[in-house]
């Protein structure tokens, strides 16, 4: 069980003074699905990016805390008492990823020349390494220096101790792709390069399935999907929660995806704050009536 807690979070654009988040409070636990809704420009994507550590935003006030529990990363990593709570704002994006934070992008980067297989295996191993470092017993001997010798090739070389090797990874990848109903040729394509909008979204869910995060923030993962692909993606998200116990913060404009991924909690964001929270019925109400009534209810103005 992990718990992500946003507390009075204020943030602005790093090289300007444009305030975007003005005191966000939110808590997501493993196994829960939260929907974060709201009109354009209300701060939903910024919230996602700040959680993941995007350098374009500066946090001016508040905290993002991640609470971990025993067994969070299996039996191999022991979590001491003093390592159960992290203010992740102090950490690099890759360190946050290692602690189990995942951001599903609305517009994922396209990286030419890097195959999906190579990328995902590298990411998985980087995460394992980083976890070891973050939870390392400081007295432990440092004999696992990386081998820079000629014998190990960065392209095809044998895995270092504790790493996922090529063959083992192929199997993991193949299984996850089958679950998501993805074409096996996907594995040899370059990361997001030339992918359709739907393929990109599917790929984000695939990455989450492989990296097994504790908390996944999915930024408009439903935009630009046809109905079939929406179902595939939704199945993937439900599997994340059901099989891995991932806590999900689902950012969306539309009720549509919530028909397939049923939220435990729905939050409405207005002007950089969570204006209203409720259960799944709130989403339906928003679909019906738009956002203005929330504004009216909360601020007393339209």
């Amino acid at each position, binding site marked *: 069980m992990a718990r992500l807690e946003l507390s009075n979070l204020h943030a602005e654009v790093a090289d300007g003074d444009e305030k975007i988040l003005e005191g966000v409070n939110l808590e997501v636990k493993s196994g829960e699905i939260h929907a974060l809704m709201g009109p354009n420009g209300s701060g939903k994507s910024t919230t996602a990016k700040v959680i*993941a*550590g*995007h*350098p*374009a935003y500066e946090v001016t006030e508040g905290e993002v805390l991640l609470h971990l529990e025993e067994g969070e990363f299996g039996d191999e990593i022991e979590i001491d008492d003093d390592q159960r709570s992290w203010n992740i704002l102090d950490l*690099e*994006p*890759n360190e*946050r*990823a*290692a602690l189990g934070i*995942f*951001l599903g*992008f609305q517009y*994922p*980067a396209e*990286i*030419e*020349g*890097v195959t999906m297989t190579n*990328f995902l295996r*590298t*990411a*998985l191993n*980087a*995460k394992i390494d*980083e976890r070891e470092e973050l939870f390392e017993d400081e007295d432990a001997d440092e004999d696992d220096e990386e081998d*820079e*010798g*000629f014998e190990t*090739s*960065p*392209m*095809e070389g044998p895995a270092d101790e504790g790493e996922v090797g090529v063959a083992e990874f192929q199997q993991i990848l193949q299984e996850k792709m089958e679950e998501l109903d993805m074409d096996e040729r996907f594995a040899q394509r*370059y*990361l997001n390069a030339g992918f359709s909008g739907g393929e990109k979204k599917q790929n984000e869910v695939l*990455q989450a399935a492989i*990296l097994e995060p504790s908390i996944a923030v999915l930024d408009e993962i439903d935009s630009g999907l046809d109905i079939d692909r929406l179902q595939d993606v939704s199945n993937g998200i439900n599997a994340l929660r059901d099989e891995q116990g991932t806590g999900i913060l689902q950012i969306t404009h539309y009720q549509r995806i919530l028909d397939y991924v049923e939220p435990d909690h729905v939050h409405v964001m207005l002007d950089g704050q969570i204006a209203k929270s409720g259960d799944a019925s709130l989403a339906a109400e928003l679909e019906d009536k738009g956002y203005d009534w929330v504004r009216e209810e909360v601020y007393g103005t339209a």
Partner: protein
Amino acid sequence: MSSEQDHLKETDTEARFEFKKEQNAAVKSDKGLTEEVIRMISEDKDEPDWMLERRLRALKQYHNMPMPTDWPGQPDLTELDVEEIVPYIRPDVDKREGVDDWTELPDEIKDTFDKLGIPEAEKNALSGVGAQYESEIVYQNMQDQWEEKGVIFMNMDRAVQEHPELVKEHFMTTCVPASDNKFAALHGAVWSGGSFVYVPEGVTVEMPVQAYFRMNSEGMGQFEHTLIIAEEGSEVHYIEGCSAPKYGVHNLHSGGVEVFVEEDAHVQYSTVQNWSKNTFNLNTKRAIVEENGTMEWISGSMGSKATMLYPCSILKGRGATDTHITIAFAGEGQDIDTGAKVYHNAPETKSTIESKSISKDGGRTNYRGLVHIADGAENSSTAVECDALMFDNESTSDTMPYMEIEESKVDVAHEATVGKIGDEDIFYLQSRGLDDDDAKKMIVAGFIEPITEELPIEYAVELNRLIELEMEGSLG
């Protein structure tokens, strides 16, 4: 294997390249360029008179030609003092033409090549490896099966002695005459070592023929000459690697490469070069391609203070094809000026140029290209694509694609992109667990992937590793 060698193999890549050996030369020329020095080189090689005459003629041409100083945006060569360069060092190897058994090499040379991983490549049953140390080929091995088919792969100096007709006809005559440019003339005067490859009609050499050039001494020049003759319908892939450690004095590398691609023949010439950052790397490489022949130039240019290198294909016969794939990496204080030249002198000729460059910490890369389509070369086509990747705002990248099109029935395409390594791309990879450095390395590895996929695995790995080291700034 001795424990010392074991130790050497365990050292990291940086140490392997920076590793220097005590000089132990049998013969070392004086500095500078005089007739006496040229005569001494020729005499030490026991050359026939015609070769000495060619050298002396080239020397005259060298002295009569001005330094190239009027190219727009060209690298600064003012610090290059050719008179201070030692043009010839013969290492102390018993057999003059090099040994064919690795164990016969002096330990210092073995150690150097061990560190560079050459025996590894050799052990992998490659068809042939030649290793040049300073001015001479010191080791050469070629599988017997190729020799039986009439393939010749040997030290260029030895080819002068053993195959004088072939060499006399092709050596710096029609392809790269000494009069071509100042550094071709210099090369013609002081050339030493290099490879001679001859593939008879209809023979396909399936495994790459490899050579490795190592410049080890301070203030020296390396001037290897590579001559490849691929007879009608033959096929060969020649691959070379080059490196030099860094010294306080400037080194000069001025190689010459001549490739003859006869009718229906196919030659691929691949090179991964990593010169020390005080080396001036000024080369002339050219191929003449006959009817339906194919020439492929694949090159990774790393290191050096300044590089000027524009491999050239002359598409002489109908239907001749040329492919250029180049990658350049410039770090702090480096000016890498590379590109490609293609002359379409016959109908239905085709060329493709793909150039990739990376600049970092104030380095400069430049793509300088020339595509000439002659009047009458109808139905020819060319496609040029230049992509530049910059790490920061201090680094620069230029593109100078000259197109001289004299024929109207042709297809010409040019595309250039210049981009800074994207913050969003880095963040995306970081959010997946890669740290900042690994994210950048992955983006660059992807950027150069079109090159690495063309290379044999050892070279692809080496190229990736070199680029990683460059990005960490850990290569002197």
